[in-house]
């Protein structure tokens, strides 16, 4: 009897602790006085976007929704910026919930807690008014030059839908506005977005038109962590109250989002059935082809960019040390400008600004050009140091044998400089290898971006991290070995050739 009482006490105590721990998530928020909600302000209107009159402040229908929901919890709402496809990773760290056009999917229902829906979206195309794309049916048949190029938001329902269509090619962007700009410039044929985005921007892009009616689609949900059930329940209650008392309809009417229709749809939305987690082997079978394809892109970008960067860098270094005096300030200016600005900005300029002056480059070409230009500035400094490290006696000896200055440079000085700088250039190559991940801003899906998208959509972050890390090692290690061999072979202290 005594032992049973002790056992019962232990059970009750554990239950109390469990409830206490989970009650903590909501209590913590109330004690803090604020609900931290994550979104990506680069996503554009009408979701969450900077106020043009006060850019430090964000506005949008989801901003007002967050404030209403927080108010129902008795706290204030605080915005936390994050990249859209990585917002769920902020849960439990720097955000309590995510409110940013996040579609409710079976995978998300499995890996996170999805609130009741707050918006019903459909997918809709936006295409040039004077173009051939006047109906959805046109887009579902082959274009004159092969598949239609359709801009989509990375990791979105639109991307998943386009990837299932044979006659469409998905061009993935980090934000919808950039994709739409590219439709205007002609870089892509159309953009597929959620209908609220299309409704908002259709008037703001007079050269574009919505194609067909919204189709497919789903619901937006507020995402919370699996470990915060109390908060999730409280958010559901808050949404229920807002829907019932008419504030949600008023919100959508203010933002011209068909308030009455929305409230009807979300009120009667059925619960999403969570996806079943596949086995490790099944998962590997699903993701490996995509990861390998993206790894190939990483290798392609690296092996095309680096040699060109080395060539340009060497030319700049030679020009600075041995070129005509009038050329040197120009070369110095190039190096300082390129070296002093971020690679991402340079990629943006090449991909998004050049079309404004009539020069449109395919995404891969833009990525290679950006990487080449950026790394050429670093290579030029490495080679300049290498050239200066070669003793002046070498060029004197070469010229005293009757060689021209050019012959002395190319046959005597530069080969020595190349050996001196090889370790530094190898390090730069490995750095460029990893920097290819930045190219996702110009819609190039390489390995890191692919990892990010798959992590978001599958929730299997640990497994994907391991596989991606192994793939990177498998790519970079042979390269390091090859360079080590080359260094040994070219070592001037070896006895024989």
């Amino acid at each position, binding site marked *: 009897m005594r032992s049973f009482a002790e056992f019962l006490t232990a059970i009750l105590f554990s239950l109390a602790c469990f409830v206490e721990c989970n009650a903590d998530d909501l209590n913590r928020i109330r004690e803090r006085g604020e609900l931290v909600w994550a979104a990506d302000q680069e996503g554009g209107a009408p979701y969450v976007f900077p106020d043009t009159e006060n850019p430090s402040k964000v506005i949008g229908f989801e901003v007002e929704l967050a404030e209403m929901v927080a108010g129902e919890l008795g706290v204030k709402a605080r915005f936390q910026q994050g990249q859209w496809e990585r917002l769920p990773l902020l849960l439990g760290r720097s955000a309590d919930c995510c409110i940013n056009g996040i579609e409710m999917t079976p995978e998300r229902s499995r890996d996170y807690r999805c609130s009741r829906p707050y918006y019903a979206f459909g997918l809709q195309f936006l295409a040039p008014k004077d173009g051939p794309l006047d109906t959805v049916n046109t887009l579902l048949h082959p274009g004159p030059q092969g598949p239609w190029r359709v801009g989509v938001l990375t990791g979105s329902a639109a991307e998943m839908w386009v990837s299932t269509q044979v006659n469409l090619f998905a061009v993935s962007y980090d934000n919808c506005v950039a994709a739409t700009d590219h439709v205007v410039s002609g870089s892509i044929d159309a953009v597929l977005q959620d209908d609220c985005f299309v409704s908002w921007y259709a008037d703001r892009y007079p050269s574009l038109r919505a194609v067909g009616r919204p189709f497919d689609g789903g619901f937006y949900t507020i995402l919370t962590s699996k470990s915060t059930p109390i908060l999730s329940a409280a958010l559901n209650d808050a949404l229920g109250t807002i829907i019932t008392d008419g504030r949600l309809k008023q919100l959508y009417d203010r933002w011209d989002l068909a308030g009455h229709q929305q409230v009807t749809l979300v009120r009667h939305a059925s619960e999403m059935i969570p996806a079943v987690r596949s086995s490790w082997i099944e998962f590997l079978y699903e993701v490996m082809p995509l990861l390998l394809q993206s790894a190939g892109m990483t290798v392609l970008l690296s092996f095309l960019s680096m040699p060109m960067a080395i060539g340009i860098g060497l030319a700049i270094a030679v020009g600075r040390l041995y070129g005509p005096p009038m050329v040197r300030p120009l070369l110095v200016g190039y190096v300082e400008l390129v070296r002093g600005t971020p690679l991402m900005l340079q990629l943006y300029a090449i991909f998004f600004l050049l079309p404004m002056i009539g020069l449109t480059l395919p995404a891969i070409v833009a990525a290679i050009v950006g990487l080449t230009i950026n790394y050429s500035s670093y290579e030029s400094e490495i080679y300049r140091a290498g050239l200066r490290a070669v003793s002046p006696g*070498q060029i004197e000896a070469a*010229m005293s044998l009757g060689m021209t200055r050019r012959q002395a440079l190319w046959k005597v000085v530069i*080969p020595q400089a190349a050996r001196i700088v090889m370790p530094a250039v190898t390090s730069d190559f490995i750095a460029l290898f990893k920097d290819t991940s930045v190219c996702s801003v110009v819609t190039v899906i390489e390995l890191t971006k692919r990892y990010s998208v798959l992590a978001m959509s599958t929730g299997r972050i640990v497994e994907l991290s391991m596989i991606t890390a192994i793939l990177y090692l498998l790519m970079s290690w042979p390269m390091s070995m090859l360079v080590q061999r080359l260094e040994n072979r070219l070592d*001037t202290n070896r*006895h024989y050739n």
Partner: protein
Amino acid sequence: MILNINALSKRYGNTPVLENVSLAVEKGSVAVLVGSSGGGKSTLLRCINGLETFDSGSIEICGHELTAGAHASNVLVKLRRDVGMVFQHFNLFPHLSALENVAMAPRLVEQLSEEEAFQRASSLLDKVGLAAHVLAKPATLSGGQQQRVAIARSLAMRPRVMLFDEPTSALDPEMTAGIVDLIVDLAASGQTMVIVSHDRDFSRIVDARVFVIEKGCVARCGSPAEIFSERSTRNTRSVQYP
């Protein structure tokens, strides 16, 4: 005269380095420039080869003329095909073997085929006693061996005049003896040479003219016997000047 230097002067800023230097060298003869450090010997040698410019005067060598100021690159290229130079610190190309060092200029400048250039290089390396080291990289050779390669490299262009800038200063006495012997043999074969050196052993070269360069001027000139002091110590190879 194969070399004629007329009233050559040079300053580094306000500091005179060479003042009104005049000297002449006959074809087939050897001129040895001696003097204390900083006297301007090496600078004079570098002016002859166009590695340094000068402020006034002229140099005529192998039919090429150099005047004050910057020299045109095509003039220098042609001059240096007739005038070879061996440096104090060898200046071998470290990324190339001894054979490649010697063969490089004939291939690039004279446009010889690889086979011809390597044949000439091989023969010269044999002549300087390095037949067994043709494939060796300079870093694996001793100082004396490196200087032999440097001499062979210069001879590969068949220069009409050879310039030696302190060829033994970076070597120990044992290696120095070998190099001196080599240069003495070259002199005996009729090679015109100008040698800057502290080493009195070059006085063994028959018919050498010794020029004492002090404070940028030619202080004295004469035969080795006239110039080198009988009172120099037995165990030192250094020169005392009257």
